[in-house]
């Protein structure tokens, strides 16, 4: 018996075929992984199933019956629930209120009754939540549990989880997996979107692999292995890029002395953070998303002010620097949000000179020829697939990131601040970015790498610091760091 079948699903976005005749079959009571690189079409396919997109071609069956799903409401009626990476909870409401939000049964709301029903459901599904807690007081893991409970409360028989582990620390992942296995035994079918092979091997029964919007195959986990899955995912063996050997580190270049900063809501985001990065080393900063990395990156890039502390780049005091001071101090920045930190509607050539305009200007008038020449050279050097006059907005994520790298690194910065530099990139582009960062380190730059991808941190860093709740939990050398040690520190226990 199939809980869900999707047959020949096609979805086009203008010229891009995001889903190209994809088939997916979900058995009742199985945990089925949907595996693929970023941009392989996993989320698109699931958005179609949940009614957020409509397919251009293809047919969906639920319980072997053909169905038409036009909206999430239709999906919920067909017993399909989805938990996305971005939670859809209202922070200022309680758990119980969030769970019944959108129900249109009657005008009045008996909150007591609802709380009781939610508590019962929590008991029944074995997902512990307190119905009266305000969502804003919950941790990310707890919020995810609320999302799952919300789906189950609305009688979901099929649960779609879109990269549920991306936001969790290793210990929370264990809790999630236990709950999923228990629910599976009670007959729930789960579609588990991921690009982490280990997790897939750990809890899934079968795997459907997508590559470039096409079906690469469906296999039983028992009949396969990591290497085969990796091959199916990327279509080639992925050896990855890793740091080679131990280097003698040079003199101190970036000095951060017990800085404090607040987040957008005015709450403390960085507490007495001190870090030192030397020439010719990569200092990795590991941590679960939202523990102060974004603020640290913003502070070092000059887009946010610190409330106390000192920052030095060599002898230059950058404690109260604005972005232009940071540029002048020869600090190269690769921000986490490349869309927001470039000007998408300007051309590649214009973006490439935006932070070093003075070199291309004579008496205030731009030297078009040199700007064009600069663009042609960097496009070649950094292997960017674009023309100088293309608007940056039209580039793929990987090429956009290469434009950012080209702009930053062509100025031979003495310090490089790289924040989530490979997020959202495919394997090829990721390898390229990582290689480039290692080149910078070998050239003698002091590199601070902020990343939520532990594998990336461990592959590239000479030393690894861990940030939790705005504090540095400790710094380990690459030799002594293990995933377990780092995982514990990321969850808040000091080294």
């Amino acid at each position: 018996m199939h809980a869900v079948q999707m047959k020949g699903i096609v979805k086009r976005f203008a010229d891009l075929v995001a889903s190209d005749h994809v088939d997916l079959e979900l058995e009742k009571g199985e945990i089925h992984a949907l595996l693929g690189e970023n941009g392989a079409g996993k989320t698109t396919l699931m958005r179609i199933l949940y009614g957020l997109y409509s397919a251009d071609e293809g047919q969906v069956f639920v319980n072997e019956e053909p169905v038409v799903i036009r909206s999430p409401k239709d999906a919920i009626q067909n017993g399909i629930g989805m938990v996305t990476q971005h939670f859809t909870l209202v922070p200022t409401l309680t758990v119980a209120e969030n769970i019944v939000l959108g129900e249109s049964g009657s005008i009045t709301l008996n909150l007591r009754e609802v709380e009781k029903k939610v508590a019962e459901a929590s008991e029944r599904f074995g997902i512990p939540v307190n119905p009266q807690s305000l969502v804003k007081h919950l941790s990310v893991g707890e919020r995810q549990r609320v999302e799952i409970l919300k789906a189950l409360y609305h009688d979901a028989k099929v649960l779609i989880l879109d990269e549920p582990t991306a936001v969790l620390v290793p210990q929370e992942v264990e809790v999630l997996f236990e709950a999923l296995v228990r629910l599976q035994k009670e007959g729930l079918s789960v579609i588990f979107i991921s690009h982490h092979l280990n997790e897939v091997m750990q809890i899934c029964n079968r795997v459907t692999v997508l590559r470039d919007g096409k079906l690469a195959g469906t296999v039983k986990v028992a009949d396969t292995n990591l290497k085969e899955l990796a091959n199916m995912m990327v279509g080639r063996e992925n050896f990855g890029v890793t740091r080679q050997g131990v280097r003698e580190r040079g003199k101190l270049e970036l000095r951060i002395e017990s800085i404090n900063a607040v987040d957008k809501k005015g709450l403390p985001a960085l507490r007495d953070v001190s870090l030192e990065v030397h020439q010719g080393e990569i200092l990795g900063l590991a941590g679960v998303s939202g523990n102060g990395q974004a603020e640290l990156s913003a502070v070092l890039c000059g887009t946010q002010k610190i409330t106390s502390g000192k920052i030095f780049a060599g002898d230059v005091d950058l404690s109260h620097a604005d972005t232009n001071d940071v540029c002048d101090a020869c600090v190269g920045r690769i921000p986490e949000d490349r869309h927001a930190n470039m000007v998408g509607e300007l051309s590649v050539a214009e973006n490439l000179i935006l932070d070093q305009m003075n070199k291309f200007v004579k008496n205030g008038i731009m030297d078009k020829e040199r700007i064009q020449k600069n663009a042609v050279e960097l496009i070649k050097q950094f292997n960017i697939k674009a023309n100088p006059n293309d608007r940056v907005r039209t580039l793929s994520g990987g090429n956009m990131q290469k434009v950012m790298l080209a702009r930053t690194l062509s100025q031979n910065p003495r310090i490089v601040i790289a924040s989530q530099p490979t997020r959202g990139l495919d394997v090829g582009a990721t390898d390229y970015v990582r290689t480039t960062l290692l080149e910078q380190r070998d050239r003698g730059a002091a590199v601070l790498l902020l990343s939520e991808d532990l594998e990336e941190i461990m592959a590239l860093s000479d030393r690894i610091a861990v940030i939790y709740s705005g504090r540095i939990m400790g710094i380990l050398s690459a030799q002594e760091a293990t995933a377990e040690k780092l995982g514990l520190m990321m969850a808040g226990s000091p080294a």
Partner: protein
Amino acid sequence: MKKFRIERAPAPGWMRTLIPIIAIPVTFIITSIVIMLDGANPFTAYYHFLIAPLATKSSAIEVLVKSTPLLLTGAAVAFAFKGGYWNIGAEGQLYAGAIAATFVGTTLVNVPPILGIPAMIIGGFAGGLLWALPSALLKVKLGVDEVVTTLLMNSIVLNVTSYLLNGPWRNPVSMWPQSPEIDPGTVFPQLLPRTRLHFGIIVALAVILISWFVINRTSFGLKMRAIGLSKEGARFAGIKVDKTMLTVALVSGGIAGLAGAGEVAGIHFHLIDAISDGLGYSGIIIATLGGLHPFGVSLAALFIGLIDTGAQTVSRAMGLPIYLGDVVQSTLLLVTLGLFVLQNFRFRRVE
């Protein structure tokens, strides 16, 4: 069964250029309903609106006269919008420029035009700039929304004008609420004899050329374009967003002020309450229609100038209210903005 579905698809680049051209016939179809409700024939009305003003040399020149301040307010608004500053206050800045120019023109006595005309231009620019200053400072220093403050500044200047004309500047001879005449040495020369076409249109065309050059060829232009497209991206690249935006806001106000100076020095030769009848607001329509491009703005200003002239012709010839011109202008703006949104949607046939 064949069905149609609406879906989002980004429009190709050439669509942007086409939109104002499509908007015009659509606007005329919509406004002909209003004309028919008034019991008139829309075709005759549009003949008087669009063709009649161009049929004779004198009325064609009058279109240029009407377009002169519109070129400047359009350029002012487009310059600000391009730099991400939503200046809705061109109307008020025009008045401030007119007041400043009147002050210059009535203070100077027996000046040679070689000094008087530049003094009027500088005066008008400075007046508009000063009137734009409070909103710009509030925006840059405190983050106060400039849409609100520039709009409110428009009402304030109307009262200032009224005070001046009924108080210290009241014409001592006629006792009308209008200022004394400006010195002949500060009057903008006529370009063609026995017409009202004056030196202001040359100022306007020069401003348009200069603003094109600044926007597209200078590093300041690249900075302001970057800010206009993405403040965050511009700031990240080390551009001083506040300083650049302040300059953009003040220059925009100055350009609008030139329009006021032109009306005083080229048309009225004194200050009156009704020196502008929404010329600044038309500037917003013109900037939008012209796609914020200086050359597009020129065409749009000429077109709106034609509609303004045409509205008078229609009203004279057919007895329709002169406000029809405003209706056409407003409809045109709404249709244009609507098309800018709608261009991103497609009909697709589904089987």
